[in-house]
């Protein structure tokens, strides 16, 4: 028998196969970015003498094990939390050196002196559900953001963006460094007007 040459395999469809694979990987690649609420934990070392804070400058929020909300010692619905927190932060009840000239609150002497002094204290139970805790955190951050938006719009009337949008642009890696520098200045000013002072107590143990 004569030796027959093996027929050559046609490689013309190789490109098609490779394209198919390529498209598969292109489609399945999800460059998703997570998002969430950023928080900073306090460092571990104990403060030797904690600063004295007047009762009226503290806004207490307690979430109990049944996911009920106690704001300033009264049972509250979460819908009202944002408004209450904003009223408290924006109160500006101080006088003299502690006065707050940009606050638009009621200047109630029983509530906070100025946003720099105002502290929101959040306490939860070990049995509190995480989703409720996140909802509360969300509303408190929202209160700060709304006030910051207002001040940002007042200080930069012709910029046409809000504080939150500006912060988004600032943290976008595609923003040029010049824009970043000018935005950072504006953001820092507003951050100083309404500093986020959110303190979390260690949760109570259930007996």
């Amino acid at each position: 028998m004569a030796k027959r040459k093996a027929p050559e395999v046609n490689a013309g469809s190789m490109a098609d196969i490779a394209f198919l694979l390529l498209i598969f990987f292109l489609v399945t690649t999800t460059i998703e970015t997570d998002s969430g609420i950023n928080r900073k934990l306090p460092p571990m070392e104990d403060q030797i003498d904690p600063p004295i804070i007047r009762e009226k400058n503290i806004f207490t929020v307690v979430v109990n094990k049944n996911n009920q909300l106690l704001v300033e010692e009264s049972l509250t619905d979460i819908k009202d939390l944002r408004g209450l927190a904003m009223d408290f932060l924006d109160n500006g009840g101080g006088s003299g050196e502690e006065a707050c000239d940009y606050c638009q609150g009621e200047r109630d002497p029983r509530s906070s002196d100025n946003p720099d002094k105002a502290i929101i204290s959040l306490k939860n139970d070990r049995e509190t559900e995480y989703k409720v805790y996140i909802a509360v955190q969300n509303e408190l951050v929202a209160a700060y953001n709304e006030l910051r938006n207002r001040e940002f719009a007042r200080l930069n009337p012709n910029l046409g963006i809000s504080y939150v949008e500006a912060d988004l642009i600032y943290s976008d890696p595609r923003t040029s460094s010049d824009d970043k520098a000018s935005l950072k200045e504006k953001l820092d000013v507003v951050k100083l007007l309404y500093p986020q002072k959110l303190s979390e107590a260690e949760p109570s143990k259930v007996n």
Partner: protein
Amino acid sequence: MAKFNKKKSGDLPAISTASLPDIVFMLLFFFMVATVMRDSTLMVQNTLPAADQVQKLDKKDRVIYIYAGKPSSRYVDTYGTQARIQLNDKFGSVEEVGAFVLAERAAKREELQNVLTTALKVDSDTKMGIISDIKQELRKVNALKLNYTTRVGDYTQNFN
């Protein structure tokens, strides 16, 4: 003057497509390498709570992930229904969180070690107790930047 006969115009020589597979393969390899499928298999239920005041968590190389929640149905027989912490591909106890964070931190590039964020991906039905424990552990190892990863949505979705 037959010597200078012009070539017949009209039939252009076909461009060789022999190198096309090579080019495509090159692209293919690029995408295969660049695709990060580092999502470790979830062993816990992980329905994130909703929030709308969120900040993006860019730059994945600066993030350490910690998962927590009830073990998913496959693991209920072995691990029960109590909420557990998942570190990489296995369940861990609260005491292991600190060591895990330190190990992850040591594995990162040196210039990133001070700017790391810990992302907590916690199931929405988890009780706060375990999260407080994690937070205490994070404070002990000085990993203070924290992100509660959420899905984007109105907070009222958390109540039902």
